[in-house]
């Protein structure tokens, strides 16, 4: 199955190492079956999040089935929301920010996505972790 048919996963952390490390774990689980991108750190390479980098990650992981974003703390969520709003209008409805722990959520969401599940199911699978 071509990767672009599956929901894409974007990982947004304050730390580039956390974002890349979580992406490594996802890749080990699902290989190249899921479009995947990570955005970590601020524009200067310090801790923080960067709207432009998040937008680039969404572009990189873009799939017609949509993109699920996993975030760590406050600013990562707010900056991800900002990035989504700055995306072209026809894409916005196909991007969700999951209320889930970043590492476990990314792995669960990617596993669900690799089976071809639609965006709402991918999001629900990641968010189930919060009620488990």
């Amino acid at each position, binding site marked *: 199955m071509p990767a672009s048919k599956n929901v894409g996963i974007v990982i947004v952390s304050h730390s580039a190492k956390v974002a890349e490390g979580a992406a490594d774990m996802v890749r080990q689980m699902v290989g190249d079956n899921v479009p995947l991108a990570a955005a970590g750190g*601020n524009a200067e390479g310090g801790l923080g999040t960067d709207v432009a980098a998040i937008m680039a990650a969404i572009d990189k992981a873009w799939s017609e089935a949509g993109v699920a974003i996993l975030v760590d703390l406050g600013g990562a969520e707010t900056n991800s929301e*900002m990035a989504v709003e700055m995306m072209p209008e026809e894409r916005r409805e196909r991007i969700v920010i999951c209320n889930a722990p970043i590492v476990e959520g990314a792995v669960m969401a990617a596993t669900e996505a690799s089976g071809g599940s639609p965006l709402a199911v991918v999001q629900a699978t990641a968010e189930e972790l919060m009620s488990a």
Partner: protein
Amino acid sequence: MDDALKKKLIEAMTGAIVSHTDELTALDQAIGDGDHGLNMKRGFEAVLADMGPISAKPLPDALQAIGTTLVMKVGGASGPLYGTLFMALGKELPPEPTVTDLARALAAAIEAVKARGKSDLGQKTMLDVLAPLQVALAHGGTDLTKRLPEVVKDAAEATVPLRAIRGRASFLGERSVGHMDPGARSSALLATAICNTIGA
């Protein structure tokens, strides 16, 4: 509004943040992640670096440009929050605003910030300074540029006993009580810088 005044306002806002970076950092270290001072400094220094082209724009477009720069450069949650504030003001204000226009635009911008931060008054945030500022603007009267700095100073101090329920400070729960909110402080600094420049 002429370009010279727009430049002075950008310089004054940047100066207020840069000269209080350490204080904002200390406030944020107490109840957040300690990045508010440097994040705001980075954002406003980027605005200052672009001051020429920004101040050549009509006020609504200049405010939009400041907001976009803050969103892109700040790197923390305050980027989208302050970015939203400036962008909403840009959307609402005419090129030559009156006090009435400012009160109305700030009311709309406060709603936009509430939506962006999913927060409300009394939650130990920048809103707890912006809302009393808006009320005082709506009241109007004389000597506003002298009185508003007092209003925002008192409002920022009034966040000390509040308990945070939004943002990183909310992780601390009751332990957030007893510290001034850094976003409230930075909002007060910016409002004061604007008043001092316009009143000068």
